[in-house]
């Protein structure tokens, strides 16, 4: 008769197939390489990151709006929205602003640097539900980064959408991101409206708050536009409030308005609780929320 307590080993071996409920996925990091760095502004760069293992690269898929955890050993790990089209597998672009440990260090690494990525995590924009509808994308500052994915989707599937409008505002012209892409977007019949809070000598566009630009766009739309429109809003918390209120007043359905929330995160998998809003995990139930949900979240905006 045996009377000992047996050891239970939970590691499931070296299976290549990783399910989310396989506990060994928890700290599983795809080893990846920074294949290119494109400096957008003094503070923001676009990093192209490719998973090294070709098989893993094929398996890595994501939806617009999702994020990955990017890690540099000993430096830190943090969440970043994927900023590239979902049609590319295992090869993501992240637009990153230098603000802290990891992001500052990233601004110093070069092409070829080895990083780790986990994910993708979180909810996404329901792009396929948006077919046949108008899309209105409102971005403030760095908020354009996550929107670049749905923009690419619209570009790739332009015929499936009605009006496509982007309203994008920053503090000043030097902070505008992805300026080199604006012509291409316009060429794909996407209406891009830029506005800056403070102009400069080289700026001849409009100056003001993003709500001003949005107001102008909305004023030009027929009443039938609003019910048939999906809106995605991304940017600093103060912006949400005003923009969402405006859209709400024009009766854009609450379930068709999406925001992407940003909170502190340490795991991305609903464990560390740092991202909770009220008691909802931003990493699991978000970062993409519809406006109805956000309204019902205590302390969301």
């Amino acid at each position, binding site marked *: 008769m045996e*009377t000992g307590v047996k050891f*239970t*080993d*939970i590691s499931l071996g070296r299976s290549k197939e990783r399910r989310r409920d396989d506990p060994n996925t928890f700290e599983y990091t795809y080893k990846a390489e920074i294949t290119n760095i494109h400096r957008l502004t003094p503070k923001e760069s676009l990093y192209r990151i490719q998973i090294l293992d070709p098989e893993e690269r094929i398996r890595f898929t994501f939806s617009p709006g999702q994020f990955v955890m990017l890690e540099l050993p000993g430096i830190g*790990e943090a969440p970043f929205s994927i900023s590239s089209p979902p049609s590319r597998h295992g090869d993501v672009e992240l637009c990153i602003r230098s603000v802290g440990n990891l992001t500052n260090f990233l601004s110093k690494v070069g092409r070829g640097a080895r990083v*780790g990525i986990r994910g993708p995590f979180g909810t996404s924009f329901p792009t396929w539900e948006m077919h046949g509808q108008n899309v209105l994308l409102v971005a403030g500052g760095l908020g354009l980064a996550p929107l670049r994915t749905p923009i690419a989707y619209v570009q790739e599937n332009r015929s499936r959408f009605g009006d496509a409008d982007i309203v994008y505002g920053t503090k000043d012209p030097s902070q505008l991101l992805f300026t080199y892409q604006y012509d291409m977007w316009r060429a794909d019949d996407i209406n891009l409206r830029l506005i800056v809070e403070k102009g400069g000598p080289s700026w001849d566009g409009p100056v003001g708050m993003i709500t001003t630009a949005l107001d102008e766009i909305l004023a030009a739309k027929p009443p039938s536009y609003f019910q048939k429109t999906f809106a995605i809003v991304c940017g600093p918390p103060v912006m949400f409030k005003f923009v969402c209120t405006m859209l709400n007043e024009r009766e854009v359905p609450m379930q068709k308005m999406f925001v992407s929330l940003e909170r502190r995160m340490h795991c991305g998998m609903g*464990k560390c609780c740092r991202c909770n809003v009220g*008691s909802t995990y931003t990493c699991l139930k978000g970062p993409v929320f519809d406006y109805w949900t956000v309204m019902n979240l*205590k302390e969301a905006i």
Partner: protein
Amino acid sequence: MKKRARRHRREEGHGRTDMIFRTLGKAELPKLFGVMAAGGKIVAPVEAGRDRENRPVYVFRETARFEEAALSYTTTKLPAKRYFLPYREDLATFRIEGDDWQKLVDYNVDRPRIFFGLHPCDINALNRLDKVLLNGVYPMPYYVAKRKNMFIVGIDCLPQPYCFCRSMGADTALHGFDMFLTDLGDDYFVEILSDTAYNFLRCVRTSEPGEDDHARYMKAVSRKNDKFIAHVDTTDLTKILDMEFQSEVWKQWGDRCLACGTCANVCPTCYCYGVEETVSVDLGSARKTKTLYSCNLLDFAEVAGGHNFRPERHVRLKYRYYHKHRGFVEAYEEPLCVGCGRCGESCLAGITVPEVIASVRGEGA
């Protein structure tokens, strides 16, 4: 009581799932302990010292001596947390090799441990943690590995003035243990949930409980029920918490709170954490360390650039109640609180769950 015991099946584990009952003479217990000690490391409640009023201070600690196990203990100051949710734990280590690196993951468990004498609240705490950390889409392997290597001997207890486990539905443990002992005077009434437990018991003398044992058991249980002093009214609590989100009472509690994090650290169900990565002084290795955190701490929700989503004490304190008594209830139909009363006992500012909730309900603290 009897009915629920027969009906429930063990959710986790292997072997037998039906509950088997035995009685065990008290004189046999040291022997059982000895048999177990021979089969693994035992963690038991132990007296660590005396407080200023000469009351014993209990802790969970490894011991191989039966005499050291204080089985009629009240409540330990700290839960057995370090054995399933260590305060500090490396999630990964890295070897730095030139410009490249290797990530090494270890779940930090090498052998099973026998927990001898957990109270129902602490067993329920594990069951509730299981919902987040073991089940669901992203199991937390560091926890899972430790949890799966816990052999648990539960033991009944007498409610202390600060215990409100009954209000939290945590006064009895239905599953999540291997064996449970209830004091019947000269004997223990033993519930057996695993074959391992069953095998251990075969090394000592036990007997089939008779009708009078059942009667004694039920008397013991009702004696316990009469002893509760602290209560929390949970009727409609999730809604009330929502309605009272802006209530002034939160401010009053916030003024008292020291934002010290003690409540979360002594709580058997608080699992929030922070992660920090550090590089060794010789730059040859790095580690990713998880540290249990507390939502009451100033920078819990602070992000890079300095924006803090909860800069005020009362807002953070409120959040702790929201997570435990609203969000978790909505997700899992029970609160993330087992009513052990530890946080209230340890809080220097005297902030206790029954008082806070009563005040939110407008019942004046």
